[in-house]
């Protein structure tokens, strides 16, 4: 059972790492701010989301697991809204 949980954690966190890596590469290599914004939101949403997913089975109690989910939800909300705001600011030429 424990080995199964470990396997799940490794898989999820590994996938999360991939998205952080991809997001960073995108942030550095993409040609303009809008595409970079796109890369950033992938890292924000999926990277942290998968890491949280991998940690949930390791939480000591349901409250700790709930807190992990709330952390992710807050970052999702913040990431989505600020991406929208940054995008609009870019379109209006405010940079």
């Amino acid at each position, binding site marked *: 059972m424990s080995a199964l949980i470990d396997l799940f954690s490794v898989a999820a966190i590994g996938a999360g790492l991939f998205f952080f890596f991809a997001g960073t590469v995108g942030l550095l290599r993409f040609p303009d701010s809008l595409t970079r914004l796109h890369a950033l939101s992938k890292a924000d949403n999926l990277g942290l989301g998968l890491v949280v997913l991998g940690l949930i089975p390791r939480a000591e109690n349901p409250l700790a697991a709930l807190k992990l989910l*709330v952390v992710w939800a*807050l970052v999702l*909300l*913040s990431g989505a*809204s*600020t991406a*929208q*705001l940054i995008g*609009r600011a870019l379109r209006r030429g405010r940079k």
Partner: protein
Amino acid sequence: MSVLPALDVGLALLVVGVAAWTIAARNLFASVVGYVAYGLLLALVWVRLYAPDVALTEAAVGGGVTGVLLVTAGKRLDALASAEVGVPPGRALKILAGALAALVAGALAWVVLTLPSPAPSLAPAAAEAAAGPGAGLGNPITAVLISYRSFDTMLEKVVLILAVLGVWSVGADAAWGAAPAPLRKVRPDGAMILLAQFLAPVGLLIGVHIFWVGADAPGGAFQGGALLAAMGMVAMMARLAEPPRIDSRKLRLALVAGPAVFLIVGVAGLALADNLFAYPQNFAKPLILFIEAFMVLSIAVALPMLVCGPPNGSPK
């Protein structure tokens, strides 16, 4: 050999690098962006030092609120004065300053490397305060703040009020009593309003939670209050709330509530527990939570007022 040392060294290099960047950056905005990143990294370092309480305070006050203070100030400064800035110092002074800075940093590093071993510690005294008669606090830091060094904490709240008074007093005479300028002039986008509408209530809940668990787990009045203050500023930045008039009685009551309640309970200790700032047995923990609740209120009100600045506009 574990990966932990490598992680620590990497984090340390990163903190120093970002700090150097905030000094080297070309303009104020870039340097403040760097400072916010720096505050966040520092919070990670504090967690590694087994100080989650400090980490939370550093992230909220050191990085977040200070960053907002500086950006807001930069914006107001641009509106006030020409972009003309004093001349940077000449090469000689720069070299001299660099030498001085290196000397001070070197001396400090030497002190760090030659700290006495075993290290002196007040932990036993704090443990005694935490487990003291009727207190039973699980979080030793809360015990130190409210019980062991209660006088410091009370005076620190007074300092906060004095700072608010200081900020208010540099406003124009004619504006006394009016509200400070809003944190944002332009009407905010729908996305920002939505964000604030979600974030502020959830943040309120989390802030109160962190204050409440602070008696036994990491958290407490400072951290909870700082988070609540940040949420108040979120509401102000989205123009869901406006800074209150500084002659508002409610505002002033909220500001003095923390130190006032602390002081009253402290003096009452003279009669009830035969010492200044001592708490009666069997009654200490609810009393401590009572004091802390008012401290949360004062901090949550004082920090946004400090960022909002002096009154601006005409008094009614």
